């Protein structure tokens, strides 16, 4: 009696496995591409805008001159819910004089930093540094 057999050699098995792995890798790679290209740009712009308006409406100047972070804290707490941030004010010799952080924000994810200089206390130069990150 003639017996029938299937020739399925090791190299054929390897070829099928490699093809399967490549197809799965393609699906995995395509489904994990990033769609949030602008997130870091966005928080950087928001930080820079924040420092600009706080400087223009004299909030930074007043905060330094009264040694109070109340208004800075109010502004930080008004930031969008998904956004965290802190503001630190330095003298021209890089010593911190004021600092405030949005309430409820602790752990920092990937963050961006914006810096703006301003004048307060008889034309002394100060630097405001805002770090922002997503919750």
């Amino acid at each position, binding site marked *: 009696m003639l017996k029938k057999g*299937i020739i399925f050699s090791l190299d054929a098995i390897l070829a099928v496995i490699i093809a399967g792995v490549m197809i799965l890798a393609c699906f995995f790679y395509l489904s994990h*591409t990033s769609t949030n290209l602008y997130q870091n740009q*966005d928080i950087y712009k928001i930080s820079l*805008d924040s420092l600009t*308006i706080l400087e*223009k*409406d004299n909030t930074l100047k007043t905060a330094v001159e009264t040694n109070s972070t109340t208004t800075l804290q109010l*502004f930080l707490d*008004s930031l969008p819910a998904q956004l965290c941030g802190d503001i630190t004010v330095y003298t021209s010799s890089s010593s911190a004089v004021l600092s405030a952080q949005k309430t409820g924000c602790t752990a920092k994810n990937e963050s961006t930093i914006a810096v703006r200089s301003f004048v307060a206390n008889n034309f002394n130069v100060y630097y405001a540094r805002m770090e922002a990150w997503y919750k």
Partner: protein
Amino acid sequence: MDKAQIFSLDVVIAIGIFILILLSAGLIWNYSREKIAIEETRNDMEIIARNALSVLIETKGNPNNWTSYAFNESNIKSLGLADEFLEVDSTKISSLSSADYSTAKTILGILGPNYEFGLDIDIWNGTDYTANYTIGLPPNATASEVVKAERFVLLDNSWTKATMKLWKSCEDATC
């Protein structure tokens, strides 16, 4: 004389596997093509929304006193709501608010297929940002893509949030 089988079982299996791989490759091709098309549209919308909002809040417009002119593309080269960088002017906002939507869209460079925009200006009242101006069209229920860009400005020396929503209206009856 014995007859031979030209189309053996191993050839059938081989063709089956080949077709399976070919179908998978076709599926990946189609999936990646659709994904790239969606991402390209989204990227285009993200760039347009951010550029339009930047032009509005960072520049005065061209001409500076565009509110004095008839609102059309030949008189106004560029729209800007600012008096100074990030200090917007309520007169310019009111003028844009009452201007023709299609003309404003064209001058802002929002020219993509079925792209619409809505601009919200919300002022800080001491406890929250409240809506003061809504310009353009807010996204409707059939919007297929919505992109949002948010910036902070000063309006009458008050903290103000400017939000540009760029959205794509539905192209056919199926969505």
